[in-house]
């Protein structure tokens, strides 16, 4: 079971690496894409941690994170296109 925790820690580490791109990305599109990647990686980390701990509440949080991340990405895109 401990290997799931190790993989979840690896995914969180990758999400922290994505924050480097969020902080220094030259354009706003780079920042939005990197923030969406952080969202997806933390999603996977939540799934793996839910399997490790055997509690379902983390999976609910993962579903909500996926939906909200998609909505935020589409809203940023519409704003950049000038349709909002």
């Amino acid at each position, binding site marked *: 079971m401990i*290997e*799931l925790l190790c*993989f979840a820690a*690896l*995914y969180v580490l*990758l999400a922290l*690496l*994505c924050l*480097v*791109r969020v902080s220094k990305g*030259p*354009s*706003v*599109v*780079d920042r*939005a*894409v*990197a923030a*969406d*990647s952080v969202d*997806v*990686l933390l*999603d*996977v980390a939540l*799934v*793996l941690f*839910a*399997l490790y701990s*055997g509690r*379902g509440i983390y*999976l*609910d949080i*993962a*579903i909500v994170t*996926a*939906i909200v991340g*998609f909505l935020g*990405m*589409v809203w*940023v*895109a*519409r*704003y*950049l*296109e*000038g349709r909002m």
Partner: protein
Amino acid sequence: MVLRIISDVFVAVGAFFALAGVVGLLRMPDAYTRMQSSTNIVTLGLLGAVIGGLLHAIGVVVEGNPTLGWTQFVKIAIVGFFAILTNPIAAHSICKAAYKHGVRPDKDFACDKYGEDEFDE
């Protein structure tokens, strides 16, 4: 036990592709190639981990805890299905928004059909 090993292999493959995607996100030269690399994170990184999680949940069912196992199975399937369904839409819309916002690649486009269409109108 065999199911556990197979699910760990899937999660490891997903972690490898997520690592490759993050390295690409940090080192690629311009915005469009970085978008391509972040799509790699979702399709292979998330899908590998989700398939591994589904096999792990089936393993929980086999080991004699069917309620917890099936709950985990359905919820992980919802996460994977939703991510695979929505991420191409988000990537397409952010790519079009980047073009309209004025983001250009390092070297100029070899072929710019979208710009020609905009110019014709």
